[in-house]
Every structure is written in structure tokens, then in C-alpha cells.
């Protein structure tokens, strides 16, 4: 099959609403959205605390978080695999090769991104913002909320960045998901494994979907970053 034929077949798949194809897209989006919903509040709160609290070991902790930004997703997957496999500490939970395992993996991958970006967003905020909130009588939780609202565009940029990273990552999804059709097969694992079995059309179709998602996310990221620097 030539590339042209494969592309035409891919477009037909996309437009015909092929259930297999859109099922795979659904797995990707559902897993990533759930992971982001968990990771966002946790990551942003931790970033805020790391930016505002002073405690021993804070600097090393920041260095570790920044180091984790570069952690290969396949290594995250490996560690999670070892924890979730039958002999692992959490083997009893029987989570390996489930969407839940993929969600956990993506949360772990998204967290350092969200923590590091919200940390720098809060640190980059005008110090008068906090002082003004305090001087007007805001309680510590209200001050925190005000600061997060003040840097909201930088936080949205952080969320886009994290989303883009996890939606396209393959290493961890493959390790702990296992590419099970209809269950844990998401866009990246399907492209990598099904294409090698000769299913070019599906691979190209999924590639197009992923590109569109990535483009949308990056456009949003650029927009939010621009807004946050105004």
C-alpha cells in the first residue's frame, strides 16, 4: 500500500466514525483528562506551598522536582510496573494493565511539570500582590487563592504543557497499560504497535488526531503564556 493510499484510507477511517479508531481516541482522552483532574489541584497546591513556605530541605526538594521534569516516561512506567506487578508492593490491587494504572502513571508524569511551573509562576508574581492581599485583611487561604488567580494565565500554560506531555507519552502507557484493545490501547501505543503490524491507515489517522490535539494544546499554551507576560 502506498503512502497516498494509506492516507486516503486514514481519512476515510476518520470521517466514517470508525468505532475502533474513535475508541482508541476515547481511551487516550479519558485517561489523560482523569490524570489531569487529579494532578492539577495537587501539583498547583504543592507548587504554591513550595513557593511560599520556608522549611529545611526546601531547596533540595525544588532541585529534585526540576530534575523529575526530565524523567523518561518509560522509567516512570518501569517503576510503576514493579510496584503494581504481582510480586510488587501494590500487587494485591491487581491494577497492572488497567486504565487506572495508566492514570496513575500520567499523574506521576504530570506532577513535576505542574509543580515546577506553578512554583515559578508564584515566585514570579509581583510581591506587592501578596502584601496587598494581606494588608486588606485576607486570611492565608484567601491570600493563596488570590495569588493563584493573579497568575492564572501562567497556571493555564502549565496545565497545557503537562497535558501535552502526558497525552502523547508512550513509555509509561505501554508498560503499565499493555496496549489491550478496547481497554488500554491509546493513541501512542496504537500507533507504535499496530502500525508495525501493517495497519498503516489507522496509524496515520491516529497520528492526525494526535497532531490536532497537540496543535490545539500548544496554541492554547502560547496564548496563555503571552497573556501571563502582559
Amino acid at each position, binding site marked *: 500500500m502506498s503512502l497516498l493510499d494509506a492516507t486516503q484510507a486514514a481519512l476515510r477511517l476518520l470521517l466514517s466514525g470508525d468505532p475502533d479508531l474513535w475508541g482508541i481516541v476515547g481511551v487516550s482522552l479519558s485517561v489523560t483528562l482523569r490524570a489531569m483532574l487529579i494532578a492539577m489541584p495537587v501539583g498547583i497546591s504543592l507548587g504554591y506551598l513550595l513557593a511560599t513556605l520556608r522549611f529545611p530541605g526546601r531547596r533540595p526538594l525544588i532541585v529534585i522536582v526540576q530534575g523529575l521534569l526530565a524523567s523518561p516516561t518509560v522509567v516512570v512506567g518501569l517503576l510503576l510496573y514493579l510496584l503494581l506487578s504481582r510480586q510488587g508492593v501494590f500487587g494485591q490491587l491487581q491494577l497492572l494493565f488497567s486504565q487506572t494504572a495508566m492514570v496513575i502513571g500520567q499523574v506521576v508524569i504530570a506532577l513535576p511539570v505542574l509543580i515546577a511551573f506553578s512554583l515559578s509562576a508564584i515566585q514570579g508574581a*509581583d510581591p*506587592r*500582590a501578596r*502584601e*496587598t*492581599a*494581606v*494588608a*486588606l*485583611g*485576607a*486570611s492565608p487561604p*484567601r491570600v493563596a487563592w*488570590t495569588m493563584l*488567580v*493573579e497568575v492564572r494565565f501562567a497556571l493555564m500554560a502549565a496545565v497545557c504543557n503537562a497535558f501535552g506531555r502526558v497525552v502523547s507519552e508512550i513509555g509509561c502507557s505501554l508498560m503499565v497499560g499493555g496496549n489491550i484493545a478496547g481497554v488500554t490501547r491509546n493513541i501512542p501505543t496504537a500507533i507504535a504497535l499496530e502500525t508495525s503490524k501493517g495497519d498503516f491507515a489507522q496509524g496515520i489517522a491516529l497520528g492526525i488526531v494526535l497532531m490536532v490535539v497537540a496543535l490545539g494544546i500548544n496554541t492554547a499554551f502560547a496564548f496563555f503564556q503571552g497573556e501571563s507576560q*502582559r
Partner: protein
Amino acid sequence: MSTLTVNTLRKSFGQRRLLSIETLSLVAGKSYALTGENGSGKSTLLRILAGIEAPDSGRGHYGAASFDWQPYPDSLRREVIYVHQQPYLFHTSVADNIAYGLRARGVGPGQRERLIAAAIAWARLERLLTTPPQKLSGGERQRVALARAWVLSPKVLLLDEPTANLDAESRQQTIDLLQGLCAPQCTTVVACHDRDLIAMPGMQRLHLVGGRIEQPSTAAE
């Protein structure tokens, strides 16, 4: 009606002792002009009085409260308001900025709306309501910041150079607002170099030099 008194207040930055005040009493209902050269510590003193910064040591007394800034008491936080030298406006809306302190005090929506409307009328901000706060000019920001303070009816109002960096017209508008800023029982301290402010009726002078307060008997000599 309470007098705010501080005793043996010390503040250093690094090796440099900036403030060393034995006693300073701000009598309820009086207005003070805090003068002193650039870098003499006017802003720092106001920020300490407002609880934004802590001194190295010192004791404060206000009404029944006696405190040492560790922590700064909530009762003061509600009644003492500080307006920055260059006010910061939250990136929300003009009305939301004015509402901020009211929300923090748990004022209900109905009363909040009434107070905000009154503050907007007081500072003549009607035409600026739809402008994003970060797009306002320096004088307009100052007016929003004053409205944001006024709406809380503070007992002690600390203003840091409210007329600095303003053109003649904005400066006059700000001075006009300052005349009506305080209820009669309210204590005001205005850090400034502005002669017209210092000469305002009823102003007493506090002069900061070498970290100490010199208090000439009256301003209108």
C-alpha cells in the same frame, strides 16, 4: 477610639540599623505627615505598623491589644490599612478590587454592592469601571487604591507617598480625595515629601532622621 503606640522598635537590614524608635504614639483622630529623606525608612515604618513586615524587636499597643508582631494581631489587621507607594491592583476588575477587603471581612453581597457603589462615587471612578485595572494610569490606580481603603472605613490609615509620581492634575485630585478620606475618628499617617500635603489643616509632623522620630510641636508654625 484607640491610640496606636509602639515602643523600642528596632529594624535593621543587614548591618544597617534602619529604625530605632523609643516611642511613637499615634493618637486616634489625628493626622500625621511622616517626612524624611529618601531611604530614611518611611515606607518600612508604615509597613511594620501595617503588619506587612515584622521589626527585629518592639512592642505595640492598640486598644486592649498588646503585641510584638509574632504574629501581628487580627484585630489590627481589620482596622489598620496600608496603601502602597505604587498601589498594586489585582488583575480582575476595578469593582472587584474595591470589593476585596469587604469579601475578606465577610460582608454580605447586598451591603457589599452598596458600599462599592458609594466608593465608586466617592473616588469618581464611574468611567473607569470597564477598564482592566492594569491599563489604568498612575493617578487612576491611586484613586482605585484609595477607594479600596476608604470602603473599609479603617481606624488607622497609612498612606505611602500618595501623590508621588503623579502629574499636577492627578495630584490635585488625590489631595482632594485625601481631605475626605477619613472619618473624624480615624488616624492617618501620610508619608510624603509633598508640601501641600504636609500643610494640610490639622497635620502634625513626624520627621524620620537617623532612624528616630523627631516630632516638632506643630506643623503650622
